């Protein structure tokens, strides 16, 4: 029982990180209808920004995090402007390849700037005290609590933003029908830019959580969480924001459960196997819109 609860908590924590990243994938997909494969590498950029501001330039912690958030947000907009905007209207696969090019570019730039050795991302001052729950023998690390709390706060904020603000409404409108939104006087380009910025900002927060839990970063740090989060976004139904959150948690918990109870060797195979089965049963993900083709 202790093991189960411990595993679940770990799964939620891992799932939180996936969910934060998956939100970026899903929002961009919902609005720009493209798979932004460079999104995983934005996490890596965020991590290196935190690393260089806090550990190299000795900024105070909060300032380092803010600068990472700002830098990632700007980076997201810049990438969109330089690499994706010119391709609006081009076949989606071509945009996908460009995104992969951007991903390579970010990785190799980080490699040139910081070298291939992994770096410890945060100073020890970022350690939070562990919490022991009664006499159950369950220990929850401070990082896990922080990660889950941050994720919940961000998700609530995002949900409010999307449902309550004018820009949020514009985003929903653009994702429904770009042309109709344009006719209604919505600035589509700006809306897409904002979406990229928000996705990247979430990625920056994800990189903070990642660094707190796993400490070490290197130029390829973003790719595997990126793919897992992408999987999570699809699992939940790509384009659906609650879906991405749910998908992230499900994948995280699934991963932890299968490695705890079945096999650490086959964890990936099990997670991906469940994904395939799930997609066969529900071809548009857990919360994805069922698209009925009009004949």
């Amino acid at each position, binding site marked *: 029982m202790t*093991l189960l609860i411990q*595993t679940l908590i*770990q799964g939620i924590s891992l799932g939180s990180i996936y969910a934060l990243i998956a939100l970026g994938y899903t929002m961009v997909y919902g609005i720009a209808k493209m798979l932004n494969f460079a999104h995983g590498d934005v996490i890596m950029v965020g991590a290196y920004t935190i690393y260089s501001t806090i550990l190299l330039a000795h900024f105070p912690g909060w300032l380092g995090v803010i600068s990472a958030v700002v830098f990632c947000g700007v980076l997201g907009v810049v990438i969109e402007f330089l690499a994706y905007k010119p391709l609006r209207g081009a076949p989606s696969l071509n945009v996908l390849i460009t995104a992969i090019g951007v991903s390579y570019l970010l990785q*190799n730039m980080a490699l040139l700037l910081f*070298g*291939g050795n992994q770096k410890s991302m945060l100073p020890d001052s970022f350690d939070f005290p562990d919490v022991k729950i009664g006499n159950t023998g369950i220990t929850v690390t401070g990082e896990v609590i922080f990660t889950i709390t941050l994720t919940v706060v961000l998700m609530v904020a995002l949900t409010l933003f999307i449902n309550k603000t004018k820009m949020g409404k514009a985003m929903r409108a653009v994702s429904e029908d770009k042309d109709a939104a344009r006719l209604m006087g919505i600035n589509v380009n700006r809306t897409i830019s904002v979406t990229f910025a928000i996705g990247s900002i979430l990625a920056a927060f994800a990189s903070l959580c990642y660094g707190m839990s*796993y*400490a070490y970063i290197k130029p390829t740090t973003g790719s595997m969480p990126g793919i897992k989060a992408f999987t999570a976004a699809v699992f939940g139904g790509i384009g659906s924001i609650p879906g991405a959150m749910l998908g992230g948690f499900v994948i995280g918990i699934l991963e932890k459960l299968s490695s705890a109870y079945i096999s*650490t060797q086959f964890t990936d195979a099990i997670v991906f196997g469940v994904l395939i089965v799930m997609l066969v049963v529900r071809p548009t993900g857990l919360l994805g819109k069922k698209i009925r083709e009009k004949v």
Partner: protein
Amino acid sequence: MKKIFSLVLAVLMVASCAVAFASCNGGSKALFEKDPEDNVIVKIGGIGPLTGDYASYGNSVKNGAQIAVDMLNESGALKGIKFELLFEDSEGDGTKAVNAFGKLQDDGMNVSLGGVLSGETKNIVASAAESGILVLTPSASAKDAINKDNAFRVCFNDPQQGLYAAEIIKEKGLATKIALFYDNGNDYCKGNADTFKSRAAELGLQIVTEQTYTEGSNTDFSTQITAIKEAGAELVFMPIYYSDAAKFLRQAVDTLDTVFFGVDGLDGLIGECGTEHASDCEDVILLTPYFADSVDPTVKSFVEAYEEKFGATPDQFAADGYDAVLAIAEAIEENGFTPDQLMEITAEDFNKKMVAAMTKITVTGATGVMTWTADGETDKDPNVLQIKGGEYVEYKTADAE
């Protein structure tokens, strides 16, 4: 539009073929070239992952080898002979490593440093068999990575270390209940773990749990840690690289109060944990022929030069790269090649003589005093070290203290 692009591509293709074609007609007749000061240049060709997931290993080897080349050239140990290091990126992929090997051959490589990883080295060794060029890999540890006569290695092979580790644990009475923890998708880790397992069984050590991870899931070890705790292990044997070990320890030290025991992949752990997480690696025991804090003069001068040039402490890979170059220089000296001889020698002769010299030489390098057997394996003593207060010290059992 497709057609246009095809056109552009076609032009590129012709250009690429032309480049490939041109590069083969450029070489001069002699095996060696001379620099403006009339020194004969021996070109050492290294290959390793300089980009991608394993970039740190490749860069370490490259830098270590560069230090050796610089030192040899400065000291003028070999009269009239200078060394040049050529290093190509393999991205950690066997096929690309073979391409890189071809590129180095075209650039007039005289001795090969093989590859950094085992898989790529095996491909390079197969590719090198045709010309018979001496291949001395710094760090490819898989048993059959050097399965040809002209291939040697600086590091231990995987089975050797697993074997030693089991014996030392038994000998020093470190533990009887052991947990294994390693990267199941990595040949180095798997090779070590496998021999450790069989040797441990022979010695009556009990493996209580075997926890693995893969490259794709090497960030979150919480389930493995929980399982090790549940199994009641007294010692965790982790034949993994320091980068993963640092991550593992970061998560494990709070939960596990076991002994942590590793092999030479753990060297570099102190630097990895840095000042931020120095306590993570406290008391870790490792089996390694090299450690950066050694008082040995060879090691000291290497570490100093490396730190000065690259601003980082050299790890095991760097030391292996350094030693490989030293061994090559030693082999040239063993043959007593003079610059004039070198300018006349044929490639075939040179390669044969270099390979033959390998089993005769003794090299004192950063990883110890080495000799080689005909099957390419090195013979050197591992040190049993423990990390204490952010430094490596020789391991002493509690009784000895």
